[in-house]
């Protein structure tokens, strides 16, 4: 078949690492703020909500827990905060054991800050009293100084005498943030902090929050189900599925080098093309890819391709066809049917418009080849 001949341009292929920044190297020198070792939590004894979770967060780092609803990301956050008991494993904060099967340090002694999804501002207290809530042990002037600093930092000056119900969603969120930061927590936990805001507001608040966390050198864990949010905020991302940690890496590695099909699919649109290993190459319908995992010849695999790696070249007489075009403003996403019937997607610029039904060849420029063993029962491989 001719349509895929251009696809393998060996110079573009790199194995894992290379262009992708590796946060692990720089983080290793900093001290660990939080260490989760093999923790499990269960609401019902037979069905663990999370199982065998291990990761470390270093000083000043922003970590996102990313996953679909019900994957256990909020449970992890609540276990760290001390609201849920762990049934196995251990949690250490600044080197001190805080949770294990037999240990449960009360939340108020953990020195963490928390921002809830619905903010949970005390409705009976004004903004300044909300922020100063945990500062009772300090003198009035010290409290006032901290509150003033935080009002300035979060841009809430002038609103200190309002009640929560007199604030907008974004303002409420900033009060919740200020309240959580007032005690200078060793770790800030944020549970879906942007989900109650409208999209425009959310993206502005994201930038503000990111700047604020950097400015205050706060170590933070943020729970979200939105991969865009995770990518724009995080130094590292932990992808969770069904209570298990699927991958823990930098946002770039998560996107380009997902280690499981679930991660590949969850963090962006991906197509999975069946292929078979022949010598040093993986042969698929849209071209050959390097056998990065050194699999034996004859192994059936799937290759992950993202729409931005596939480009359309209209070619008379070619056998692939455009099935549909979806205009998304900044891009056009084409659905393409290959001669075998497999479907792939291509992302083209906003101005590249082709008619549905156009015969095309594909140019595949994949920076990274991601291979997964083929699950049993999938359709037979069509080899070019």
């Amino acid at each position: 078949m001719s349509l895929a001949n251009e696809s393998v341009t060996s110079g573009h292929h790199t194995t894992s690492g290379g262009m992708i920044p590796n946060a692990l190297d720089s983080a290793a020198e900093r001290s660990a703020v939080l260490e989760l070792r093999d923790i499990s939590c269960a609401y019902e004894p037979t069905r663990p909500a999370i199982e065998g979770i291990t990761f470390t967060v270093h000083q000043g780092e922003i970590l996102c827990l990313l996953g679909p609803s019900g994957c256990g990301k909020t449970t992890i956050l609540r276990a760290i905060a001390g609201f849920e008991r762990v049934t196995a494993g251990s949690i250490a904060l600044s080197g001190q054991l805080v949770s294990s099967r037999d240990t449960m340090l009360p939340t108020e002694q953990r020195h963490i800050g928390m921002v809830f999804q619905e903010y949970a501002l005390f409705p009976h207290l004004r903004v300044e009293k909300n922020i100063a809530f945990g500062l009772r042990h300090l003198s009035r002037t010290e409290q006032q100084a901290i509150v003033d600093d935080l009002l300035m930092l979060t841009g809430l000056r002038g609103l200190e005498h309002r009640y929560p119900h007199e604030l907008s969603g974004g303002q409420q969120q900033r009060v919740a943030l200020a309240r959580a930061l007032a005690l200078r927590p060793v770790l800030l936990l944020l549970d879906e902090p942007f989900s109650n805001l409208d999209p425009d507001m959310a993206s502005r608040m994201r930038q503000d929050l990111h700047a604020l966390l950097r400015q205050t050198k706060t170590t933070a864990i943020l729970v979200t189900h939105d991969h865009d949010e995770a990518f724009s905020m995080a130094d590292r991302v932990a992808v969770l599925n069904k209570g298990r940690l699927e991958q823990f890496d930098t946002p770039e590695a998560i996107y380009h080098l997902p280690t499981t099909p679930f991660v590949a699919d969850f963090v962006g649109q991906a197509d999975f093309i069946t292929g078979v290993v022949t010598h040093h190459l993986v042969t698929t319908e849209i071209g050959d890819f390097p056998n990065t995992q050194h699999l034996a010849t004859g192994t059936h695999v799937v290759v992950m391709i993202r729409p931005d790696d596939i480009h359309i070249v209209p070619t008379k007489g070619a056998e692939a066809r455009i099935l549909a075009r979806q205009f998304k403003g900044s891009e056009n996403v084409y659905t393409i049917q290959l001669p075998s019937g497999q479907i792939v997607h291509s992302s083209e610029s906003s101005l590249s418009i082709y008619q549905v039904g156009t015969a095309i060849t594909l140019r595949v420029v994949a920076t990274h080849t991601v291979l997964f063993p083929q699950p049993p029962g999938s359709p037979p491989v069509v080899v070019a």
Partner: protein
Amino acid sequence: MLTATRVQAPSSLQWVSLFTAALLVFPTAYIVYVAMTAAPAVWTRLWSTRIPELLGNTLSLAVGVALTTLILGVSLAWITVRYDFPGRRIWEWALALPLAMPTYVLAYVYAHLMGMGGPAEQWWQLLFGPEARLPSPQSFAGVTMIMVLDTFPFVYLLVRSALQNLNVSFEEVARACGVSPWATLRRVTLPLIRPAIAAGLALVILYVISDFGAVSLLRYQTLTYAVYQQMTSRYDHAAASILSLLLVVMAIIFLMTERWFRQRSRFYQTSGRYRRSTRQHAGPLGTALITSYVVLVFGAAFGIPVAMLIQWSVEAISQGALDTRFLGFIWNSSFLAALAACGAVIIGLPLAYLASRRPSRLNIACLQAAYAGYALPGPVAALAVLVLFTHFAPALYGTVVVLVIAYILHFLPVGLQSMEPALQQVTPNVEEVARTLGCTTHQSLWRVTLPLVRNGFVVAWVLMFLQTMKELPATLLLRPVGFDTLAIRVWLESSEEYYQLAAPAALLIVLLSLPALMLLVSKDWRGDPQEGIK
């Protein structure tokens, strides 16, 4: 849209509703008028003799009951919401049951139990020697205890619903701010449920100052009892009106308090998603303590009284108490109650319909006027209707008509509370969509509007029917001669200390109150903070 509504609601409806509202306000206004135009001598006599004592008695009783229900209600709500213990689900419901017990029934059972030579005193003397005395049920302590046992569920239910609606994130965020569990309770949880507590207490006080049954049986001098006495023994309508005016003013103050706190509590609810608190398992010791506390309260307020009523009823029935006369009392009660409930639904309909469909200032004012009955304790409602009819239509005095009008005036607010939300569900859009689907106005009324409002109206009817069944003071004052109802029989027999004879009717009243209670409580159970018990 506006034209469509106009066609469906002709302006004659407006006149009907204005006229009804005027009729409903008139008795109250007339009492105020009679009180204000009473001879100055009557005022000075009352101020120098009766009023200080009556006000003192009424208010001290209200405060005593409020403080005790505060402790009982809040602690029981806390236990049932925050702890898990065997039988919790049953106790949650059981603790609301005392509301099904009219005060005169509870008072009459306790008059026997705690009275001179009664079972409680015999048991007490067995323990502490033959000279030991219990506080008499007629004393301040006795009346307070009986009223507490009857009213603590108001506080219990409102606080319970507030605790269930409390977003546990508030407490968690306090803990994350480094605050201990006790300080969290004091600084976060209690302030958040304070509006619910205040609303509950206002209801309790309203109930206490308007109560007639218990205070009349125990001969404890409060304002309501004094109004009754002025009307029956002295036939002094001017004096009765002056005392009533005091009562109405007090009632309005506590009604406003309750409304205000309930409004406020809306700010205290989180909108959207929230997390409920998890229950703590009570250990064996905790379970023992909790169970004995709950059993004690429930037993005193409902278990023991009902057991006594059953025992007495069995004795009375074996002596042939269930004769045709008894059936006649049941018929009288049901007949009056059905008449009043039907009348109230018909009268309430135009008011509620206009206020929900065309909420102009006038229409809302008309609806508010119908709620005036809330501020009228039973004897006052009776007095108002009585004074009005003796002046303007003396021929009707002593007939069932007067009585039914007093019932409607008194209980219409209970019905309106169910009718109003039912009508609000029917937006013009729902009817209009039926029209676009090919229904005529008439068909859309039958197929859309009526099915939507039916349940609310049935509930309103049932509530008003059951409330009327157990009504005492207005019936006592306005019934045609010899026309006895179940409630009247209970009151008359127990006034003469024929405990067995009063029991079958009392037991029947308690049983009949249960469905109404279930309707009210299940509304509250869903945890909607706007709707509560009344």
